[in-house]
């Protein structure tokens, strides 16, 4: 982990944030503030989705605008299995991961043939396809969504109904995925992916099978996000097509860019900032979008490298 934590302002903020996140259940227990628990569990889960998006978008330069589809697929895998009487998490979660990976394989195989704005729009269109398919699934609630009456069962190993336990499970899985992604991008495989981001033609000329590498990367990100989707379904006890509408994918992109592309903890910082900003604005004004929207525009125009970049520049 020493690669992750050099001494600089960015890491000071990261470590501070991790300590705060670790203490949230304690704070909630002391003050009786259950809302904080709900909000921050959601933050952790979406941060995990953002971490997976950062793998392809930040490190791989693959601007996928359909990442919410994997959240939805993971969630629907859990919801559909639960409705059909398969309550075991040992089945639900692997299925959620497998379905998302398979969808990522198909979408990746088709969309990685294209470049630039085509890639953005095609990933967007395929995600929207999943959204419409979910609306068409009348048996599983169609447009209205489906309530999950029983959270995934782990045979007495972990009780997901215990909010504190669930929170720390999400926290552990988030840290594990950050670790996994940072190990991955610093491996030979990851360096080839990052090389392809800067100059794909050169990487191909050196002899790397760039298409295959990118596809594998795309599938890993999809699978990881599928797991986040399974967590999200367990968190909300509810799935609906709305969780994968394309503006959700936009939210995920905002989280990654806001925190800092291609930085290990950027997605987490971005998710915390975005969701808390949203929450704070909706408390002080009836029209949060009036302020949130222009903020995003200003971030896009002025804040190169997101919050991570901002802290970097402040460094002595």
């Amino acid at each position: 982990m020493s690669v992750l934590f050099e001494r600089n302002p960015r890491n000071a903020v990261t470590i501070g944030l991790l300590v705060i996140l670790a203490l949230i259940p304690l704070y909630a227990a002391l003050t009786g503030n259950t809302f904080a628990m709900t909000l921050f569990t959601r933050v952790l889960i979406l941060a995990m989705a953002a971490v997976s998006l950062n793998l392809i978008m930040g490190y791989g330069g693959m601007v996928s605008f359909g990442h919410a589809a994997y959240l939805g697929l993971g969630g629907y895998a859990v919801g559909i299995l639960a409705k059909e009487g398969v309550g075991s998490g040992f089945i639900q979660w692997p299925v959620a991961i497998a379905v998302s990976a398979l969808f990522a394989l198909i979408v990746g195989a088709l969309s990685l043939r294209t470049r630039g704005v085509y890639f953005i729009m095609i990933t967007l269109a395929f995600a929207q396809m999943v959204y419409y398919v979910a609306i068409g699934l009348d048996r599983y609630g169609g447009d209205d969504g489906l309530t999950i009456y029983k959270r995934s069962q782990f045979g007495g190993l972990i009780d997901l109904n215990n909010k504190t336990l669930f929170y720390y499970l999400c926290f552990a899985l988030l840290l594990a995925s950050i670790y996994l992604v940072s190990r991955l991008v610093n491996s030979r495989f990851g360096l080839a992916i990052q090389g392809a981001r800067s100059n794909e033609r050169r990487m191909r000329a050196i002899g790397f099978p760039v298409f295959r590498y990118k596809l594998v990367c795309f599938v890993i990100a999809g699978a990881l996000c599928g797991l986040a989707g399974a967590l999200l379904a367990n968190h909300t006890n509810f799935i609906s097509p709305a969780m994968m509408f394309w503006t959700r994918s936009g939210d995920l992109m905002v989280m990654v860019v806001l925190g800092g592309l291609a930085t290990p903890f950027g997605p987490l910082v971005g998710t915390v900032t975005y969701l808390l900003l949203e929450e704070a604005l909706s408390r002080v004004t009836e029209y949060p979008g009036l302020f949130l929207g222009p903020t995003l525009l200003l971030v896009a125009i002025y804040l190169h490298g997101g919050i991570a970049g901002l802290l970097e520049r402040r460094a002595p």
Partner: protein
Amino acid sequence: MLYFIEQLLNGVQLGMLLFLLAAGLTLIFGIMDLVNLAHGSLYMLGAYFAATFAALTGSFVLGAILALTATFVSGVALEVIAIRPLYGRSHLDQVLGTFGLLLFFNELVRLVWGPAGMTLSLPSAMLTAVQIIPGVYYPAYRLVIIAATLAVAALLYILVMRTRLGMLIRAGASNREMVGALGVNIKLLYTLVFGLGAALAGFAGLMQAPILTVQIGMGENILILAFVVIIIGGIGSIRGAFVAAIIVGLIDTLGRAFLPDLLRAMINTNAALTLAPALSSMSIYMLMAGILVFRPEGLFPAASK
């Protein structure tokens, strides 16, 4: 058979609307290299302006003209204030910035017009159904939509291919720097093109307003369809957008109308019944995937830059 003709016309009508949106998107992308997610917001604004002005003036046509002007002006203002800094930036920055604009416009509409939707009633002459061929009746207003959008498409063709402004637009699409170097006011050209795209989106919105409920977020679904259209047609190509819009409109409408029955006839299982509505909404994406396998740049790739 009668039902088929009706659905065919519905498909053409959806296609024409998609063309109005896709033409603006593809122009803006082709010339300014800008991914504009706020395009659907302009469509929504067009519809809201139409409903408001029609109610104020008491005339649908007058309301439509005012709404069109208002959307053009909004587009120009949007370009000058918010879009300009995004030119020449990465597509990711543009996606982020225009996504912010989309959130802003949704909220602005909620602030100005309230959270409830609006309706726009038509003059009684357009409410009747016309007999198009013996035995087949079709709502007059939908025919008006088809005719009006065809006229706009023709005007757009003349504008782009036969006028001096169109010449500059085409030149801008093939080599931006060169056009600027030749002394053309490229800033003004960009603003005009953005305004034109906004007006086209607004026109689509105001024509659609009497058929749908005018509501917040109405542009978000149709924007994705417009994206599919320009992917299939080839980004930057207006001709491609036209052909692809008709194809997508027809396949989407006919797929929804006939695919579930077709599936039921072929495989009569419960699974098929459950999946039929889901599958029918996949048809255009299947088409897009199929076309991408053979032509990753779309049907009519614009001249390479």
